[in-house]
């Protein structure tokens, strides 16, 4: 896909007093991309978004929008719109007036404005509510209007600041699909900020994992989940078992390690150069219980069980290590392991990852 660059961030740093919010961050967002900035609170993701919008300016570095430097442009001169976390709908205006606000400021004539407002209300399925005010809407409806208002002026980039965090679980699920399809339909570049890894994995074309003010990894959802660049990413995205191991040899992208289970395995590695201590990351759902025929086999004892409905989390003690194992409950009231029961575990080498400690 040969696509243009929508946003380029070059070596951007930002400090508030002595607090370093961002430290030398660089990345490029392509046109029509659903790009997610993911990280724990305080990682600098919102600061980055606010710098693209123009509400903050970088202490160092540059931000380019469609190839043009925007450093000196105030927010109202950037062809970028924001969906605010609190929606920030104007309470004294009707929904139609809210959506028309940006268009009026851009100098669209009345006819064009009205047509666009109607189109936007249609797009977010809120046409019958045009004359209402924000106070009369539910959370999900406000969310839709905030989206319509931000999309109406046809921005080059749409910024979304944790827009789903105020919604309840069911609604959040539905809005994810809606956001995704809106992005496809409009073809506008979305930059989505969230601390919710599930949202990020579900919606994004690419994810940028931020931690401690720095980029930890940029990649597609499956790259981020299956091939985490380091311990931070493996830990933050999804659940995993960290097993301390000894690297025997490193050969290209693979490393031979000695595990505490008394076996040696060869697995893909990231960030290693030679022998020494390292961490083996093994996701709970990639470990099988008894049924697993191929791969390495471990003997252990169940020490804990968390029933989650669709699946069950077991804690299994293997050679002094506590492993989390996730098992899908494929059949109703099917076999279940009791704490204290001995079990056989199996995993394949190609689902383990060796990471620098």
């Amino acid at each position, binding site marked *: 896909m040969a696509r243009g660059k929508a946003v380029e961030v070059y070596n951007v740093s930002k400090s508030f007093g002595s607090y370093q919010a961002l430290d030398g961050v660089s990345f490029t967002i392509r046109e029509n991309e659903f790009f997610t900035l993911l990280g724990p609170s305080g990682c600098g993701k919102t600061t980055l978004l606010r710098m693209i919008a123009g*509400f903050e300016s970088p202490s160092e570095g540059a931000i380019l929008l469609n190839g043009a430097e925007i450093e000196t442009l105030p*927010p109202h001169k950037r062809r970028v719109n924001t969906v605010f976390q609190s929606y*920030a709908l104007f309470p004294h205006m009707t929904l139609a007036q809210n959506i028309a*606000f940006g268009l009026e*400021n851009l100098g669209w004539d009345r006819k064009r404005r009205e047509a666009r407002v109607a189109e936007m209300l249609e797009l977010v399925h809120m046409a019958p509510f045009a004359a209402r005010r924000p106070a009369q809407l539910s959370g999900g409806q406000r969310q839709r209007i905030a989206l319509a208002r931000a999309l109406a002026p046809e921005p080059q980039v749409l910024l979304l600041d944790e827009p789903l965090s105020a919604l309840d679980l069911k609604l959040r699920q539905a809005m994810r699909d809606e956001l995704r399809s809106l992005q496809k339909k409009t073809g506008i570049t979305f930059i989505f900020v969230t601390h919710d890894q599930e949202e990020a994995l579900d919606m994004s074309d690419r994810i940028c994992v931020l931690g401690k003010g720095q980029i930890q990894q940029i990649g597609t959802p499956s790259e981020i989940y299956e091939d985490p660049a380091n311990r931070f990413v493996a830990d933050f995205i999804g659940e995993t078992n960290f097993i301390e191991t000894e690297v025997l040899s490193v050969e290209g992208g693979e490393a031979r390690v000695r595990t505490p289970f008394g076996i040696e395995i060869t697995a893909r590695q990231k960030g290693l150069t030679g022998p020494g201590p390292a961490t083996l990351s093994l996701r709970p759902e990639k470990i099988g219980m008894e049924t697993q025929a191929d791969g390495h086999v471990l003997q252990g004892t169940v020490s804990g069980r968390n029933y989650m409905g669709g699946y069950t989390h077991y804690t299994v003690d293997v050679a002094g290590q506590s492993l989390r194992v996730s098992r899908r409950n494929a059949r109703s009231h099917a076999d279940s392991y009791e704490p204290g029961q001995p079990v056989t575990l199996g995993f394949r080498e190609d689902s383990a990852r060796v990471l620098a400690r």
Partner: protein
Amino acid sequence: MKALRTFRFWGLAPAWLLMGLTLIIPIGIVAGVSLGDRGPYGGFDWALNFTSYREILFTMGWTDELEFDPKYLMIIGRTLAYGLATTAICMALSVPVAYVIANAREGWKPVLVYLVTLPFWVSMIVRVYAWLIILGNEGLAEKTWKFFGGGDVDTFLFTPGAMLVGMVYSYIPLMVLPVYAAIEKLDPALLEASHDLYGNRWTTLRRVILPLTWPGLSAGAILVFVPAIGTVLEPMLLGGGKQMMMGTLIQTQFGGGRNWPFGAAVAMVLMALVVIVLILNARRAAGAAKEAAA
């Protein structure tokens, strides 16, 4: 039921007593005086005629004919004009002051609010006298004016400007406080949303800040306008009595003029003006509330 009714009656009795003693009875007395006859040596005689009200618009000519005379209408007009000007200037000055207070650091806010209310701790007469000295000959105002190269001035005192300065100074805290409360409540995300949607500063002020702080601004306008049209001290001391206002007119009728019924009639007109302003404001507020709920 009967017990409840008894409780209601006696429970509200203190409030009724207070309203009666401080509001209804005094206004009744003024209304009564305004209908009376002028006493030969000041004071008044009980009567029931409207001659005092007629005097506001007409004078008795040499030939005992009533002639229309706009001199009191002009005083009423001037009073309203000064009241409106004071309100407008207070509003224009209050918005930035309130904005600064609302955006000050948390610890400073109460201090700044306290500073705004500080003048109320000093008697009004003393404060207006202070302006007499500041604006007077060789006063601080004149010295500052000359320091910055201003030409010779006769005097700042006893001019409409001096009166306005005094009135704005006296009543501005009544505007700053409600405006501050309104700005403080304003969600900063809304201002960002306005800028984000291509609104410049002026658009943001006009379409977001002003409509959302309007309840505070209109409350402040009422609080300033109502006492401003009844003011006595500023026109007397700073205006030098050259610009007669309704407040000073009433004062002279009860004092040197010795025409209590006429003074009382003007006072009733002043009160009617205030009531009209309050009714208009209440209607507008009710309309706005209805619109917001619709």
